């Protein structure tokens, strides 16, 4: 039954997910054109990013393109989240919920299927936003960096590496490599885990709204904001500890270079995970023991 639930959940969300992915692709194209075309015109006009009238005008164009692009990406991310919340609420707790809740499946299967599909979509949107940013910046840099400048940069990089090899001990080198590995793993986990945790938290909060007799949707939304505020406070607190704690320890215990950054990401993952799992169990409890479909 779980496979069937996932299949139908995917079928009912793929259109909106596809549209949002398409919007990101179009915005990447427009953002790249809006950023690179004025840049090329400036380079053709004066050969540098100077203060000529053309340069100022094109600079404004670039700034506007960049702002539009950023707003569009943020909008796409929020659109997906809002859509998933509305879809969950509609299929679970409105008239359509009368069919969903009377299917011969367990509340656990229902919650899992919805969290899994919503999490996959959130992850896909997050990945596409990252790819879009990489495309935009690589296009930007390839426009402004001439082949000779690139050669100079490569030479500088090699020099830096040689310098580091001379200065660094074997132990320091291993330490840095481990830190970089830790950082990359933290980033990967963040990308893989947080979309599902975010969805579990949102679905749990919307389910809490079902405990209200009259204002189910409103209480659900308010619960979500409440949970997010608590989560942010905990994360800020942990970030404070990692930032100042690592600064103090670095002098005495040779804290890894990426220690505080990775620590912040680790705490974000752990807090998201604890919050997501807690809200999943809250939702499961309400669906099993307290469901009230008016």
């Amino acid at each position: 039954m779980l496979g069937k639930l996932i299949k139908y959940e995917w079928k009912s969300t793929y259109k909106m997910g596809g549209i949002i992915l398409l919007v990101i692709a179009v915005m990447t194209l427009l953002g790249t054109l809006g950023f690179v075309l004025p840049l090329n015109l400036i380079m053709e006009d004066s050969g540098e990013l100077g203060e000529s009238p053309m340069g100022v005008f094109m600079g404004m164009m670039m700034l506007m393109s960049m702002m539009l692009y950023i707003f569009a990406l943020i909008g796409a991310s929020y659109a997906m989240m809002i859509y998933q919340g509305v879809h969950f609420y509609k299929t679970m707790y409105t008239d359509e919920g009368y069919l969903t809740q009377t299917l011969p499946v367990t509340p656990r299967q229902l919650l899992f299927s919805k969290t899994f599909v919503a999490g996959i979509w959130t992850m896909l949107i997050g990945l596409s936003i990252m790819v879009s940013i990489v495309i935009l910046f690589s296009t930007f840099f390839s426009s402004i960096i001439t082949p000779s400048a690139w050669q100079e940069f490569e030479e500088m990089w090699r020099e830096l590496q040689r310098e580091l090899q001379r200065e660094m001990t074997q132990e320091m080198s291993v330490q840095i490599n481990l830190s970089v590995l830790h950082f990359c793993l933290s980033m990967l986990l963040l990308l893989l885990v947080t979309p599902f945790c975010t969805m579990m938290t949102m679905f749990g909060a919307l389910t809490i709204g079902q405990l209200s007799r009259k204002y189910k949707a409103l209480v659900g939304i308010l619960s979500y904001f409440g949970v997010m505020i608590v989560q942010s406070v905990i994360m800020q607190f942990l970030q404070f500890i990692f930032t100042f704690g690592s600064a103090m320890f670095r002098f005495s215990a040779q804290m890894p270079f990426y220690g505080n950054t990775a620590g912040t990401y680790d705490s974000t993952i752990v807090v998201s995970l604890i919050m997501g799992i807690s809200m999943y169990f809250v939702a499961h409890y309400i669906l099993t023991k307290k469901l009230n479909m008016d």
Partner: protein
Amino acid sequence: MSNLVEFAGVTKCYDQQRAAVDNVTLSLPKGRIIGLLGPNGSGKTTLIKMMNGLLTPTSGTIRINGQSVGPDTKARVAYLPDRTYLAGNKKVSQILDYFVDFYSDFSRKKAEEMLKNLNIEPQARLNSLSKGTKEKVQLILVMSRNADLYILDEPIAGVDPAARDYILRTIINNYNPEATVLISTHLISDIEQVLDEVIFMRYGKLVLYTSVDSIREQKGKSVDAYFREVFAC
């Protein structure tokens, strides 16, 4: 005759002031068409929702086929709610696929035959159909299952008399004779002819559970006339 449904001291309170269903203890046998009758707010829909797991009882237990309400009972209960529970953007054929996938007792062939009889196009989207036709589609979905218990909440409310006749014919001709059909309505005269037994409810309490024949024989009245007498304002 063994019982299909057992209610034991079932109470549902939405608030502390009044119970929507108040300490109902009742057993429903197999192979009957039972009318669940009562004025508005008598607790009929609340009782039905608890049987389908849409509401959790405040106290008491409900057992169907000896099991507590859950995935196993939902697999054997065909429920028609008092509202449209199908997504409007779906085609009728897609909804049939959905029922085939989730209900092992669903007969696609039977559903397609009924749709054909009513000239409902399987490729039509639900939001392009009239309210009455949507209700017929939902009824077809429910009656195409070979369930142990059919629970129909106001199946004939809001449709014209001709459609009511069709709906009642569909219920009579398609339900599994070993199964029980529980029909909630306040349009008693329209369904009286098909009922074996009736349950009267008022203010959440069970007022009467008896056979239609006994009302006719002992009271000398139709169920509709007796209902009007019992619930006279």
